[in-house]
């Protein structure tokens, strides 16, 4: 199957739904189902395949690339999106206004994951960005508009910086195809300073969406103020696309020197995220800062650049996506049912609604890297690969992990503490949330306790992250 359909179908459906507002919800669901199925279908094959668009051969025209990494990340992103859509629409109070936006964001996220062209990537980033700004302002209060505006400002600056980086690179390399540039870079055909400038500009540009310090000022506002559905998509689906693309681009066309910067910024992001998250007394802002820290964790591994590190990075991205999905949906559920999500109002929730407690606990333990859970395997690999760098890196990461464990356990304990306030009505858990939560938690446990062979898939993905693009580029250039 040509992966272009993953972009084209949602885009077409979005186009239709602008005219047929009544059925836009159904079109969104349709596109989500299609993409989920297609994503799974895509993952059955293996190896690196390039699909040219419009009949132009890759170095000259745009092409889509499917690597082993994409084969994991794409289905994960699409399925999570599908889940988010299900949870959202089951409530019957979905506003139809934003369905188009969701559909468009789905198309653009797939595009981001698939494209092998720097300018095409910019276009998809812009589309995804605009969709995200719109999603960010869906919150009930005015604050969400302010947050969205900040996001808009930062996002536009980031896009511009990225575009500037692309322009510089284009001027030097004469092509926009990532594989082609990567080949030239690895052959040492490009000027070092030019490379550095363009890498820095691209790190900054992509860093905005990848939540890298100091370009991530928008995150807390958007994640805490936006609507539940939007937060779910922005916090679990977006990072999958954004962080993996960050690593793809930077590894392929970035300057080696810039990788040091990636390590520094990544580690700083982890530390800052965890320390601030430790301070929060409100579940959603804790999760927001924890998201920042998690993306920092996934990104600093890119700076290390070994296969092991990239494997860990992919695993962390997926672990974060799955677990954050559950955590944010539990959070939105509690805010809706209990009206608040601070520490005290969550007391006794785990006893009152055992399934919510269970899936929350599993996800939180997985995020914080407890043994038996997927996050542990990911963190294990991350730490072991971080020894490639300076010794201080693993130490800082471990320190951050201790802080992370402490605050996650604070929340877990809060869930199981006896509640002393006024009588609360028995919480009824929506069936789909329960089902999805249990499935995701089960996946986390399964991956955490599965054998080494299962995790070889991730190793392949990590390999693909490092090798696939450049190998493809070699073939392309050879073809020319």
């Amino acid at each position: 199957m040509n992966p272009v359909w993953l972009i084209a179908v949602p885009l077409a459906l979005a186009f239709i739904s602008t005219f047929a507002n009544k059925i836009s919800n159904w079109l969104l669901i349709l596109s989500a189902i299609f993409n989920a199925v297609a994503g799974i279908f895509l993952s059955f094959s293996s190896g690196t395949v390039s699909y040219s668009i419009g009949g132009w051969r890759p170095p000259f025209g745009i092409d889509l690339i499917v690597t082993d990494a994409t084969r994991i990340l794409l289905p994960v992103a699409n399925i999570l999106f599908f889940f988010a859509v299900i949870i959202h629409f089951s409530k019957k109070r979905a506003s139809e206004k934003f369905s188009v936006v969701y559909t468009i964001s789905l198309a653009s996220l797939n595009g981001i994951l698939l494209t092998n062209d720097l300018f095409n990537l910019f276009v998809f980033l812009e589309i995804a960005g605009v969709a995200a700004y719109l999603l960010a302002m869906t919150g009930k209060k005015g604050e969400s508009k302010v947050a969205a505006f900040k996001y808009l400002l930062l996002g536009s600056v980031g896009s511009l910086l990225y575009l500037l980086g692309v322009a510089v690179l284009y001027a030097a390399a004469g092509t926009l195809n990532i594989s082609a540039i990567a080949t030239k870079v690895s052959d040492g055909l490009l000027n070092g300073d030019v490379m550095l400038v363009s890498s820095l500009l691209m790190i900054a540009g992509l860093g905005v969406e990848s939540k890298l310090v100091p370009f991530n000022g928008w995150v807390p506002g958007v994640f805490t103020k936006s609507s539940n559905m939007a937060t779910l998509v922005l916090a679990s689906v977006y990072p999958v696309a954004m962080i993996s693309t960050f690593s793809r681009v930077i590894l392929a066309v970035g300057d080696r020197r810039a990788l040091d910067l990636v390590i520094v910024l990544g580690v700083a992001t982890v530390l800052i995220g965890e320390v601030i998250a430790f301070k929060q007394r409100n579940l959603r802002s804790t999760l927001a800062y924890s998201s920042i820290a998690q993306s920092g964790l996934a990104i600093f591994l890119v700076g290390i650049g070994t296969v092991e590190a990239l494997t860990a990075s992919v695993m962390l991205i997926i672990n974060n996506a799955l677990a954050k999905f559950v955590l944010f949906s539990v959070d939105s559920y509690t805010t809706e049912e209990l009206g608040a999500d601070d520490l005290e109002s969550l007391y006794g929730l785990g006893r009152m609604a055992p399934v919510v407690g269970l899936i929350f606990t599993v996800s939180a333990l997985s995020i914080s890297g407890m043994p038996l859970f997927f996050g542990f395997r990911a963190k294990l690999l991350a730490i072991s690969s971080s020894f490639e760098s300076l010794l201080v890196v693993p130490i800082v990461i471990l320190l951050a992990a201790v802080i992370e464990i402490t605050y996650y356990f604070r929340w877990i304990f809060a869930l199981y503490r006896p509640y002393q306030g006024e009588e609360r009505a028995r919480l009824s858990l929506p069936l789909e949330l329960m089902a999805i939560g249990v499935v995701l938690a089960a996946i986390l446990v399964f991956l955490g306790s599965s054998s080494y062979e299962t995790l070889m898939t991730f190793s392949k993905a990590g390999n693909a992250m490092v090798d696939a693009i450049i190998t493809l580029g070699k073939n392309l250039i050879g073809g020319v």
Partner: protein
Amino acid sequence: MSILTLLVASLLAAPILYLLAKFNTKIAYGAYAALQVFSFIYVFFTGRSNVSYEVIGITERLNFNFGITPTNWFFASIVLLIISMSAIFMFPLKKSPVKIFLLALVSAGTLGAVFSQDFLTLMIFWEISTWASLILIIQDKEKSPREAIKYVTIASIGTYSMLFAIFYMLDKLGSIDFSTVATRIESATVEVQLVILISLGVMVLAKMGVFPLHIWLRGSHSSAPDEFSPILSGALTKIGAFLLFTITAALPSFRIFSQLPVFNGIPMVNYTFALLGGISIVVGTVMAIRMEDAKELIAFSTVSNSGYIVMALSIGGTYATAGGLMHVLNHAMASAAMFMAIAAVAYRTGTTKMHEMGGLILKMPVTFATYLVAIISVAGIPPTSGFVSKWLIYQQLVQNGLPFLAFAAFFGSIGSFMYVFKPLAGIFLGQLKPQHRNLKEVPLVMVVPMAILTLLTVFWGMLPSNAIKTINAVTASVGINAVEVTFSRIVALTGEWDSILVTTVFAIGFFISLFIFMRAKKARQVDLMDNYTAGDFLYTSELYHFSYRMYRPFDRLFEKWPSMEDWLSSLSDKIKELGALLKAIFYPANPQLYIGLAMVAIIGTFWWLR
């Protein structure tokens, strides 16, 4: 049947017992106790002679390595003894399916940890038991979540430190087997050796509750369910001793650090660990003396005794190693017995505050006897096993000439008189409270494990040679000289003593005084309330029970000392303040500030990287 089968069986037992307990808790608890007793008997009797290894592959580089060596057998027997005794003991207490699930998980994790032959296996199983115990702690009591958070933090410091060590080893030495690491570490550079041993040492400190990572013990031990405290203190902290023994004795830390500065025959690193052990002896003792809750007091006594074990095993040498291992044995028994006695008292009275009880000796005589023998052992008085270990440790202190460590050891030993006596006086002696007038001894099923531990303590006190011979086998397997023993005598550097002789002489002395006592006029029995009151009349027994703040003058000496208890909470406040600062810097209210920040970052890094 092998260790692996046993391990798989205990792991599988957890969900099965959970389901069984949903159906009937009594059967589930009975099955649990049976399983633990069976594992103990099986391990104790079959593991003594044979040495075997078993491996399960998990990745291409990492395996689960299990094995029975004398060391594993020694620690496994102790840990399983405590767990199986507690498993019987807990039968009449409050039962729940969740608890039995977690208890089974704790036991399985502990079993896996003590039979491990490489660091990763050790850590994974240890973590299973740690996290299960963590959730177990918060089961029963109100204050426990706040206390458990401390445990989480300290435990994760330890865990990540050990994780770091493991990958560092894998990176630098290419192996994490105990035996392979032991051979390869000698040729590594000093930095590598230091990093590995110190980060493993942090794990030991965290899990054994040794200064400065001791703060979790008070809260966790005291707020844990009563039946679980013996396991927590008697069994789980002893895995820390297992790791410590591995890194000090099995990895030849003395040889490899001999090029570093050496104090009195002890390399600097080991000396530092011993010093930390010494500090925790002092801190644990002082804090234990000041506690008013019996379980908190014993928790601090665990800190102090863990300090002894850490000190002894870090000093190394023939006597201290044997003494440290002996102390592992008798502290496991004594602390489990003490916690059991307190649990028994709490089972009947519903409180663990010492000043809320009193005069229970005639109501609960077996519990009293258990507690008495346990504290005699903790205080290190001869006819119990506690004296043996202390004596051996002192021999090494004298041999190496270590006054500062000896100060700590003596402090802990003499100070232990003070703290162990406080519950004895507060709970068992003194005036009986009116509301406890109708108390009865705990049921037989609780009495039996307490009695067994008591008898074992006395047995190894009278015949320490029996235990020392086993310990000699353990130390011989790692190449340390044996302590010279005969049937009743132990010979060390500065002299010898004869346990049978001491016991006999004490018995003779006792009978002489009994003879005089019987010859004199028979005493008239009077009630406890018939007491000297300077002529005042007395009817309220509470007024005449002096146990609240029994050591007030001593307390006053330490009132102004900085509290390590507040260390963690102040640290957490510091982190929160740092968080606020970072938030103000990196997440300001105005978007132009972010953009400014981003620009500064880009330009700055360009100049840096160029």
